[in-house]
């Protein structure tokens, strides 16, 4: 009984112990906050990565791809059996995107993907990252009238309405220019004709609305021989990753603004290799029908999606005799709970790399380095922060030695009154446990409150320092994601209590071993 009474009294009267409590508290709170934020980040990233990639990806490295994907899929189904939930084939090809922006040509390196919009959405999340709400439900490569990105206030006018306006504007400019130049020709007379032809061409510039060529490749829906009317027709549809055609900047007020080089309704040019052994560059115009924003900058800045059948046609991936179409990539979705690594290994056994130029990976393999980096970061942060608590532990050790010295006479008195060495020891041990419990309890509450209001706190810090804590141009999340894992908290709390307890063992032992006579005489 006396041990509890005394250790509670010591807790209340020794203010030096408060310092130890605060250090334990800060350590625990920091650990909880860091773990919650890291877990939130990791989960968000996992979600996105997995959402973007299918469970298993089979890539064929041959430029012509794998012929007859149906036969391959049959083989794959035989290997994996009922573990397959869905599959999709696609063509991946590196390409160069050319955007006409105010008379300048902007080129970007992109990963051109030909997808089957029916099946592609089943193996990975695709539609939900598109800007037009209708496309999110059902992906379409046809330009929509209007209504892109209703949730983004600064998104420019897009769609057919914009396209018609733009064509009308371009035509009006052109007519006006022709009229002016005709007038100038008349005024100057015929001798200036050759000169004016050159300026005529130059002044037209690269305006694609009139200066395109439909003769290189005939699109399926444009009737040959007829004049292409951009106000009524579109080129094959393309969906661009949002960062391939926009740049995110900060204006003077510190607000984040996206600047778009092109938008749904504009025409862009894609250059990519064809599938023949004697590779040539295909130069094809597309009409942007939507933008793709996943939040993963790696994806948003490199991907462009077109229709699979069109891309196969442009690249010459259709066997002229049999009519079978080649693909470069097969994506598989497995039933939930299936072991991805096992399925991947089964497939690798069926398609050994010695005989097939296939690269078979799970989504985790593809993002392995990134996921491993996040895990490593979390582990190292945890170790570092536990070291902070260990430092607090040494603080407790030093404080306790001081208290034991200060209490030497009392310890002698207690022994003279019949207290055992174990009893004395348990006073200081319980004192240590109590410090740990109080410190980590307060730290836990503080940490949880911090996590709960982390976004408010971030905005307050922003207001005070003028420095953005959570930069959306870097992270693509508008809020700091957090996940509170009760087990982590339990471990943190138990860990710090045991550190506090361990730190009090030595002083407690010393107290227990004090000689009663010497401690009674201690001045």
């Amino acid at each position, binding site marked *: 009984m006396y041990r509890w009474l005394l250790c509670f*009294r*010591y807790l209340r009267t020794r203010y030096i112990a408060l310092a130890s409590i605060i250090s334990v508290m800060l350590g625990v709170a920091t650990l909880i906050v860091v773990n919650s934020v890291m877990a939130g980040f990791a989960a968000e990233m996992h979600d996105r990565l997995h959402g973007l990639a299918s469970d298993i990806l089979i890539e064929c490295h041959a430029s012509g791809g794998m012929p007859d994907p149906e036969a391959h899929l049959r083989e794959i189904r035989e290997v994996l059996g009922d573990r397959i939930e869905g599959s999709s084939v696609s063509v991946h090809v590196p390409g160069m995107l050319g955007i006409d922006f105010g008379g300048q040509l902007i080129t970007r390196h992109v990963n051109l993907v030909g997808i089957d919009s029916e099946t592609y959405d089943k193996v990975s999340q695709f539609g939900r990252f598109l800007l037009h709400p209708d496309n999110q439900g059902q992906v379409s490569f046809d330009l929509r009238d209007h209504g892109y990105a209703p949730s983004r206030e600064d998104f420019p006018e897009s769609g057919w309405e914009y396209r018609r306006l733009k064509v009308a504007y371009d035509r009006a400019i052109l007519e006006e220019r022709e009229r002016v130049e005709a007038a100038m020709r008349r005024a100057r007379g015929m001798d200036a004709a050759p000169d004016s032809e050159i300026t005529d061409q130059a002044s037209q510039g690269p305006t694609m609305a009139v200066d395109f060529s439909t003769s290189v490749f005939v699109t399926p829906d444009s009737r040959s021989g007829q004049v292409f009317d951009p106000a009524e027709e579109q080129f094959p549809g393309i969906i661009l990753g949002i960062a391939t055609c926009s740049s995110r900047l900060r204006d003077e007020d510190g607000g984040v603004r996206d600047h778009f080089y092109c938008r749904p309704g504009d025409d862009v040019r894609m250059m990519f290799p064809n599938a023949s052994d004697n590779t040539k560059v295909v130069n094809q115009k597309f009409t942007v029908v939507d933008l793709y924003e996943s939040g993963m900058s790696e994806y948003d800045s490199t991907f462009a999606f077109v229709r699979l059948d069109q891309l196969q046609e442009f690249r010459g991936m259709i066997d002229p005799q049999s009519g079978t179409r080649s693909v470069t990539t097969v994506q598989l979705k497995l039933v939930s709970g299936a072991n991805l690594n096992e399925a991947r290994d089964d497939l690798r056994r069926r398609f050994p790399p010695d005989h097939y130029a296939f690269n078979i990976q799970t989504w985790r393999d593809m993002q392995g380095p990134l996921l491993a980096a996040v895990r490593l970061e979390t582990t190292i942060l945890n170790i570092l922060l536990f070291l902070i608590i260990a430092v607090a532990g040494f603080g407790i050790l030093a404080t306790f030695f001081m208290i034991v010295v200060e209490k030497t006479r009392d310890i002698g*008195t207690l022994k003279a009154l019949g207290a055992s060495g174990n009893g004395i020891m348990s006073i200081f041990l319980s004192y240590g446990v109590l410090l740990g419990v109080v410190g980590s309890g307060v730290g836990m509450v503080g940490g949880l409150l911090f996590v709960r209001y982390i976004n408010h706190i971030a905005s307050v810090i922003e207001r005070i320092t003028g420095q953005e804590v959570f930069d959306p141009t870097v992270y693509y999340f508008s809020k700091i994601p957090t996940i509170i894992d009760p087990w982590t908290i339990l471990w943190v709390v138990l860990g710090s209590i045991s550190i506090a307890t361990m730190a009090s063992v030595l002083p407690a032992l010393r107290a227990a071993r004090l000689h009663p006579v010497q401690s009674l005489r201690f001045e």
Partner: protein
Amino acid sequence: MTTFKINTMSDSPVLRAYGIHKSYQKDKLEVPVLRGVDIEVFPGRLTALVGRSGSGKSTLMHLLATLDRPDRGEIHFRGSRIDDAPRAARDAYRNRDIGVIFQFYHLLPELSALENVLAPIMIGQSTWSYFRHRKDARRRAEAMLDRVGLLHRATHKPGELSGGEMQRTAIARSLMTHPALLLADEPTGNLDAETGRDILELLRGLNRDEGMTIVMITHDDQIAAGADVLLRMRNGRIENEANRQVA
């Protein structure tokens, strides 16, 4: 007075020590403090142990309280040897069988006077049994404080008490577990003459009215004069048997 003495003489001693040797190590030099002390403490008596500083009387008291162990010799309490008893038995002996009073009171500064008086009970009992009997314990502690005339100061911390009050509290604490014997080490040594007399009177009263056996160590012959038995220590020995007769 004489009959009383004869009666007690015939009783067996409550505490008996003989052939006690004790020396301390000081810079590789062995300093003998006690060199063969024999002492018997009879129940119901106030025994005074007089000696100058350094004569070894405090050391003897520590040995009698089992706070330290003799190098040679034996100490018997009610017929059974306690100096080499197991640690738990010695703890129990200090807790229940004897009460100790120190010159510097040795109260726990974090506890109130009442809690200090309760301390031996708290130490002697498990948390659970203390909780079950805490009302009885409290009542007894209050009775003890009342006995030493300090009930009105029960909630005060030692820091708020005077020296005399602290020593009264210490006496109340020593009485808490119904001990068979009180060991008092210079109980008045740190007090002014008048307060010292009060404390002495309190101890004498305990001896007279309740038959409490008391061993009191002092360097003051005047204080020792009132004792039933007077033992004089010199150079680590009890001087001679004749001194056992009351002055």
